[in-house]
């Protein structure tokens, strides 16, 4: 049997459990209509109208996501290197120091340009 089957099994059980909970939650609770209750919560005032497809949000979050991708890919390069470290010998150490230094330059640049500041 494949090593992936237990994962699929666990995911399947969890999915059915979650789906069942949602259906059960819709059936077991009371249903009392109230227009104010069905509007988005905003501390009791009329909710701010939201455009279709989500409202505007600070560009900072987008930047964080981009930086995450850059650094996450760096980590992905570090993993195989770490696993085969003992076979690579000292050559691997020197190569990876160059790599980390390069990434560090990019990192300092981002820091210097204020990419990590959060007002």
């Amino acid at each position, binding site marked *: 049997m494949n090593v992936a089957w237990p994962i699929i099994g666990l995911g399947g059980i969890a999915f059915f459990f979650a789906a069942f909970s949602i259906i059960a939650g819709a059936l077991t609770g009371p249903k*009392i209509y109230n227009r104010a*209750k069905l509007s988005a919560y905003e501390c009791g005032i009329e909710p701010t109208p939201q455009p279709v497809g989500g409202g505007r949000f600070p560009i*900072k979050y987008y930047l964080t996501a981009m930086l995450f991708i850059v*650094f996450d890919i760096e980590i992905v390069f570090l993993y195989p290197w*770490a696993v085969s*470290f003992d076979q690579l*010998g000292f050559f691997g150490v020197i190569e990876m120091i160059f790599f980390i230094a390069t990434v560090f330059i990019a990192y300092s640049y981002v820091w210097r340009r204020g990419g990590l500041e959060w007002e």
Partner: protein
Amino acid sequence: MKLFPNVSLGAFGIDPWWVTLIKVLAVFVILVLMTLLAIWAERRIVARMQMRIGPNRVGPFGILQGLMDGVKLALKEDVIPFTVDRAVYILAPIISATTAFMTFAVIPFGPEVSFFGVITPLQLTDFPVSVLYVLAIASVGIYGIVLAGWSSGSTYALLGGLRSSAQMVSYEIAMGLSFVAVFLYAGSMSTSQIVAAQERTWYILLLLPSFLIYVISMVGETNRAPFDLPEAEGELVGGFHTEYSSLKFALFFLAEYINMVTVSALATTLFLGGWRAPFPISLIPGVNEGWVPLIWFFSKIAVFLFVFIWIRGTLPRFRYDQFMNLGWKILIPTSLAWITIVAITRGLRNSLDLPTGQTVALLGVPLIAVALTLFIRDWRKANAEEALEENQILVTEIDPFAGGHPIPPLPGQVLVEQTSSRQGITNG
């Protein structure tokens, strides 16, 4: 060369189907039970820390409180606001809960045992890159949160979801970097092999900085206090789950607690020797065999869960910019520097055949000196700045009506004499 006497990767994926089924169901039930117990424990422990008693009515010591909370939520109205994007809104809690359960599939509970005549490891499955799998599924879990915030069509939910995802991706980098040193020592990314590699020494002793970075980032990753900014009540009401009610809300709650258990289990596996007995007990023969290691494994998880609750009871919430600074400007450069140090130390040891003690001394002494110098410089600078600020406060005069609202003076501040406070408001 490393010897793995315990469980080899070949032991996975060969169970008969009924053993796999029982194991899958067992993991599912254990996670649900852990969640119910963790909710109860958290409420009781935080109550004790705040000089209260906490829930003690339902069952002995109130232990059924978590279950009762669930039943109560099931009997509440399932409100779906008309602003939501219905399909995504319903899908989001399912994604959160499913991924939370799925991460646990590669956590080793114990060594191989005989189960109704079948020799099987106490672990659902394992493969050469199982820690990478945990990170991947954890990343998918972020979708649950960001989609919940986006599909709610509410300002608070959107901001909470964005904050939460930005926070989780930021801390995932620090978390991922803290694993590198572990892989380097273990020579494998598979959880069972990492546990096997810790037979002599736990990695918490060899790689303490990695462990500390992991512990900080695991609290950030699970959105727990003091990093629970997505649900900062004062600013964002409930964060991404503001618009969720009834069992949909319960699913997010479940996912949060399962994630707590998972990151604790991962910390145990990677740094605390997994299911191995702690040092003095490990000398007794037989404590690392059969079903006994389940005790050590769950005790270690319980310690981590207690620390989670303890931190929550002790620390106030971070401010968002401070929190992001900690992640991006402290944890990431520290991890990178630490990985370099570990790599150089181990590389020197491997190629020059130096004993570990000498290598550590050769590299450690100058490094500690540099770190201390930097620390003292920073500390002096901070002190000087503080003194400057204090001096500035001492000479300040404030106009209590400058902004239109009356402000009381801070210690050391002097009020400006005014002829008429009324005039101060109209003119100022």
